[in-house]
């Protein structure tokens, strides 16, 4: 029987983390070297955890699928990182950062976790500055801040448009220092395929060496998965091409609960798809909506050049539907409405899957120079990718998947329901509820890695006998290694007619259409049926090229796509279970006439945590509910009026 104890410490909100730190067990410095910890993933969460725990004296083994830890997808985050420093003296505080984050998540996250996140946010900035992260500064030499969506204060620290890159390089460099000092055994181009569980505890992993194809066994006293989000289930997303769900999903199939899988955030201002060959989507800062007007032609199939369409034949749908917020409605509403007009056949561009974002009026009002000073780099990026000049004609934009709030269920200590198996960063579900605010992902990854796991892992290891070793020839390692090898052999032996990318693209279209921006009961039921039949075809008709004992990227992809098929079905089940709308989860049956989400706190005020049962043609999962208790904030309906 699975126990869903979140292990939230007693006491007032402000004291929970400090009390917990006081009460947690410690491992003495001379004993730490006797413990080995495996950390999978080297993004902000994994990289920060590896560096910090090696500094403490634990023996760390770090794994990444790329050729270097520095390539982890955290590197692509543009905007910034929140912290409650209140340098601008505009009324910010730990409480306010906590409140904005829990409200932004539409009250589907734990108060205690979110408060702790806000509490450690300031230490992250201190740490990063000490590492040499070149944050933006004022002429005074002090750190600069800017404002971001969902907040009335300026609390976002940034390094031009490359904040993720600079924070990641800070963590990476700290990690490399520990590699040099011998605290970290560093494995690149290794993919985790199975977690090994002995006597109910996580005791190691199975990896595939992506260069030689060798299946490797690694034993440890604890395993941390910091393997990122699963946005690539949609095929097209802003995620890097190698981002995947495999490590988390394989852990799920070994018993780790998967929480809130249907909570996926879609960003409204991305460069649209230009054709079937498209491999990924590129995000542009949503600050563009401050000056750009969003519209589509009123007439279906109006293929005139946008500049030739007169004012009264333009449908400024956000301004018409939301007169008070206009083009500045929140991310989810903007995304949803773009989909609605495109579904009505009003979309523009070659594919009909785009809307215009027009700066004509802003340029006429402020002059081209003012607009260029504000958005020049974004306009250049757009011109490079789309091949059109946004100063002289409207941009075409479309929403794209870019962050997954769901992930492995973890307790307050970031431990899954499997003792010794932890999950951090985007890979866990913990802090963003049903919607993540901008500049909060970097904060959470680094909070987990630098400040939470180094404490909570000690609390776990203190109860593990140091030096416990079962040996990698233990039956559990044998079985897990065999499972990993079998799934590879099976894929290579299908020898079908359709390519992996073709299957992935088709799956992505189902997930986007039916488990995407807005969902309906019928659509979700159809999605489940469609996913099952496509998955059956995949396992009989996919063509996986090459050999297993060589570098073979398409073989890697095949395994990941196989896992995405199962995850996609669970996402639909989760969305179907949740008969309410909250945050990014919009069920069309549960919305006001203006398209605002109608939350149902009576019945759905819980984290859905799914337990894998079986997969015989259909995916069998059992739902467990962690009811959320709100002791400190009052639940309110979000309003954009």
């Amino acid at each position, binding site marked *: 029987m699975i126990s869903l104890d979140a292990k939230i410490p007693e006491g007032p909100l402000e004291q929970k983390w400090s009390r917990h730190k006081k009460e947690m067990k410690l491992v003495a410095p001379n004993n730490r070297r006797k413990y080995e910890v495996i950390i999978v993933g080297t993004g902000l969460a994994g990289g920060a955890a590896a560096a910090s725990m090696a500094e403490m004296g634990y023996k760390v083994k770090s794994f990444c699928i790329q050729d270097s830890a520095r390539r982890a997808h955290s590197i692509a985050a543009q905007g910034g990182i929140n912290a409650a420093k209140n340098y601008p003296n505009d009324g910010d505080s730990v409480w306010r950062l906590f409140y904005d984050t829990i409200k932004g998540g539409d009250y589907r996250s734990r108060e205690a976790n979110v408060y702790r996140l806000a509490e450690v946010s300031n230490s992250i900035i201190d740490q990063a500055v*000490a590492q040499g992260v070149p944050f933006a500064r004022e002429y005074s030499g002090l750190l600069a801040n800017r404002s971001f969506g969902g907040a009335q204060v300026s609390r976002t620290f940034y390094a031009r448009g490359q904040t993720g890159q600079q924070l990641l390089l800070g963590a990476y460099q700290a990690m490399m220092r520990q590699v040099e000092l011998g605290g970290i055994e560093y494995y690149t181009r290794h993919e985790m395929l199975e977690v090994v569980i002995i006597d109910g505890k996580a005791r190691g992993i199975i990896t595939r060496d992506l*260069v030689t194809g060798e299946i490797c066994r690694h034993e440890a006293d604890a395993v941390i998965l910091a393997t990122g989000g699963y946005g690539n289930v949609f095929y097209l997303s802003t995620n890097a091409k190698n981002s995947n769900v495999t490590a988390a999903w394989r852990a799920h199939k070994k018993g780790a609960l998967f929480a809130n899988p249907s909570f996926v955030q879609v960003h409204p201002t991305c460069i649209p798809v230009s054709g079937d060959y498209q491999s990924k989507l590129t995000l542009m800062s949503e600050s563009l909506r401050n000056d750009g007007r969003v519209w589509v032609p009123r007439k279906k199939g109006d293929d005139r050049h946008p500049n030739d369409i007169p004012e009264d034949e333009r449908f400024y749908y956000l301004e018409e539907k939301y007169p008070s917020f206009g083009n500045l409605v929140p991310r989810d509403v903007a995304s949803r409405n773009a989909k609605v007009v495109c579904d009505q056949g009003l979309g523009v561009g070659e594919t009909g899957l785009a809307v215009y974002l027009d700066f004509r009026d802003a340029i006429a009002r402020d002059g081209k120079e003012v607009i260029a000073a504000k958005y020049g780099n974004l306009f250049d990026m757009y011109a490079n990718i*789309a091949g059109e000049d946004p100063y002289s004609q409207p941009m075409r934009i479309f929403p794209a998947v870019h962050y997954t709030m769901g992930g492995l269920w973890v307790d307050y200590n970031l431990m899954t329901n499997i003792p010794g198996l932890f999950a951090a960063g985007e890979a866990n579900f913990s802090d963003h509820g049903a919607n993540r605010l901008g500049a909060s992902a970097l904060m959470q990854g680094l909070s987990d890695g630098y400040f939470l796991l180094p404490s909570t892992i000690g609390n776990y290891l203190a109860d593990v006998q140091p030096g416990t070793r079962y040996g990698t020839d233990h039956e559990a390692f044998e079985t897990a290694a065999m499972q990993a090898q079998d799934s590879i052999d099976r894929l290579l032996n299908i020898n079908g007619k359709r390519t992996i990318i073709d299957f992935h693209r088709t799956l992505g279209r189902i997930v986007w259409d039916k488990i995407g921006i807005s969902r309906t009961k019928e659509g979700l039921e159809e999605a489940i049926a469609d996913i099952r039949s496509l998955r059956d075809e995949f396992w009989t008709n996919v063509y996986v090229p090459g050999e297993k004992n060589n570098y073979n990227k398409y073989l890697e992809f095949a395994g990941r796509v196989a896992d995405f098929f199962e995850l996609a079905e669970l996402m639909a089940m989760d969305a179907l279970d949740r008969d309410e709308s909250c945050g990014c989860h919009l069920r069309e049956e549960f919305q006001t006439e203006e398209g605002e989400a109608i939350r149902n706190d009576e019945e759905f005020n819980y984290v859905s945590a799914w337990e894998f049962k079986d997969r015989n043609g259909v995916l069998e999962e059992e739902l467990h509910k962690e009811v959320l208790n709100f002791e400190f904030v009052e639940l309110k309906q979000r309003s954009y009026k």
Partner: protein
Amino acid sequence: MSTNMTIHLRYWRQSGPTAKGYFEDRTLSTVNEHMSFLEMLDVLNEELQLEGKDPVEFDYDCREGICGSCNLVINGQAHGPKKGTACCQLHMRNYSDGDHITIEPPRASAFPVIKDLVVDRSAFDRIIEAGGYVSVKTGSAQEANARPIPKKDADLAFDYAACIGCGACVAACPNASASLFTSAKISHLSHLPQGDVERNNRVVAMVEQMEEEGFGDCSNFGECEAVCPKEISIAAIADMRRDYARAVIQG
């Protein structure tokens, strides 16, 4: 409307690190001007697979010019013809119908080929390991605003910190030198007070590691700066040499 182009490709094939490599030719007739360069290679690989042939391996991840995974040498130029642009951000509208394009891995003995266009760049990790960091432990940092840093220094440090570690500088250098990569990290850290403390040890350790990895010396060709997707200034190399000389003299 977009138009289809015909592109004649010639790409490097090598089945493993010790195998003999060769060029293979293939003509693609469905190249679209909106495709990125790597999407064109995706199309090539789909075609190959549908014929039961092995796809061409190449490294990539973010496809938005920031992760540094891609590192193709295109018609002899690292990352291709567009200035300040990684090849994942290079679009086919920069080419014309009927063009011939040759694609190679970066050629450097410190970057051995793994397969086809994929090379081993772990030497870069080892250069950073040697000293490309500030030795600050988690939790021991002082208040972030306790020490003001002049904006111009912070901005300059950022210019160098923008390096994505792709290795184009090595690929472009006639000596296969890693001087721009190494000096960019040294200059990033030495322009900040936090990095200044370990300045001497860092420059010596990193320069020596660079030599140990088998990268060549810098002879001021300046090719590295020309191909760098982040347009990092070669001034970093001058800084590195000055710092190295001073560090050696000071001991």
